[in-house]
């Protein structure tokens, strides 16, 4: 069966000695929408950084059947669109349009194709007129949308988002949830927002202390209060 993401027995220890991942297994099939939850320090962000090769640990990581090797990094990064927690870290170009164009540009696409992708990505996140704006004038919710657009423009096979609703006010959060519901891509979303998980994601993976402790239907997990509490979660 073709998997978009395959992680087998992944181990990773930070240079300062902190063991962040202690044997993680994860398989995501095309079209799935999966939530990744767990307490702070569980290793969620670390795991995400392994999915596009920014961190390299021991074990096997494959993206769209490509093994995580230097020669595949370009294609892998085009296939996995990672949206990090702090949009300010990802909006690093002088204008919004430049940021959304960055990905396709570095993929080597011709100018008019890049422009087309920029327009459609901005439209997909509901900000079609934002191309000329400067990032620091955007609101928190708008920045998150542009960050998502900057990754959509690469037309990845899977979207990986790290804490997308963190720091948003209720309106911004609702808007983002609506956006995620509308996007057709395969998704892996790391979050503390269990109410959003219940709304959007049929499958939930619980990571705790660097290992996967639960991997199954969201409904089952939400019904098990003891299990939630054991891993620092609250429905």
């Amino acid at each position, binding site marked *: 069966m073709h998997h978009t993401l395959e992680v087998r027995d992944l181990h990773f220890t930070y240079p300062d000695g902190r063991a962040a991942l202690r044997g993680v297994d994860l398989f995501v099939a095309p079209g799935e929408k999966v939530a990744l939850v767990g307490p702070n320090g569980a290793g969620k962000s670390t795991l995400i950084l392994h999915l*596009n090769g920014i961190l390299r640990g021991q074990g096997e990581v494959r993206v769209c059947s490509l093994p995580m090797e230097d020669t595949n990094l370009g294609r892998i990064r085009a296939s996995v669109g990672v949206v990090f927690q702090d949009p300010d*870290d990802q909006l*690093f*170009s*002088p204008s919004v349009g430049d940021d959304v164009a960055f990905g396709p540009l*570095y993929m080597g696409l011709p100018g008019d194709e890049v422009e087309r992708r920029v327009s459609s990505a901005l439209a997909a996140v509901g900000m079609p007129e934002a191309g000329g704006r*400067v*990032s620091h004038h955007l609101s928190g919710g708008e920045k998150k949308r542009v960050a998502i657009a900057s990754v959509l423009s690469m037309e990845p096979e899977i979207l990986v988002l790290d804490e997308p609703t963190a720091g948003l006010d209720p309106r911004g959060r609702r808007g983002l949830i609506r956006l995620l519901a509308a996007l057709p891509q395969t998704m892996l979303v790391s979050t503390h927002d269990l109410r959003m998980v219940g709304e959007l994601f049929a499958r939930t993976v619980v990571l705790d202390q660097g290992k996967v402790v639960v991997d199954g239907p969201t409904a089952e997990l939400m019904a098990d209060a003891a299990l939630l509490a054991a891993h620092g979660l609250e429905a």
Partner: protein
Amino acid sequence: MHLHLADRYRVGTSPVHRLDPRVKILLVLTYILGLTLAAPGAWASYAAFLAVILTAAGLSGLGFAYALRRSYVAVPFVLAAAALPFTVRGPTLSALPVLGWPVSELGLVLFLSIGLRTWLAVQAAILLTATTAFPDLLWGLGALKVPPALVAVVGLMYRYLFLAGDEALRMMRARQARAAALPGARPPPVVWQARVAGRMIGSLFLRAIERSERVYGAMLARGYDGRTRSLIHFQMSARDWAALAAGVLLAAGCLGLQGAT
């Protein structure tokens, strides 16, 4: 919550706004070069240069006085030249009332010329940034063969300037909030103050380094390979070429008026 770092760009659709950024950059450089080449005391030239910049300001839709009002930034440094009227040897004009220092005509002419030129040059630069969005300005510099790595670094710096400025502002406000002074107490010594400020700077430095690592990760995630790439944003139109030619001719004309004083 911005630390004086207001965007200098004023949105507009005037003919000046719509000029290719390369043309605007070249025009400003030509203007300033022309100013620099004008000899001291060439009042007719300076008047012509002033007329040019006022016309440009008018054409930009920002009003004649726009650049004028903001040109006071030049003032402090002009004081550096303030000694000239008193030190340059030559026929004296008069003497200062109280101090009795002789004021030489040549020195005065020199001082006024320098002041005028600085003032005019600053206005030209102000107009440039007011009519050109910074991303476009950067693109223009890159298109004019400024090395791409440099342009990329400036672009990134610009983007994070406001964030860094906000962080600094928040730190200073936090410091203020803890800077209670009881009546009668002596203010803390300068060295201690410097140490506090220095530690704030050290913290900011740390945060910047960590942020730069995250930004690097985000760039890698979108396929960054170390080379700078950008889209072509502007094409030169006939109007752009005409404006460029006109500007060069005007500058030459203003210079040519030197002998007319």
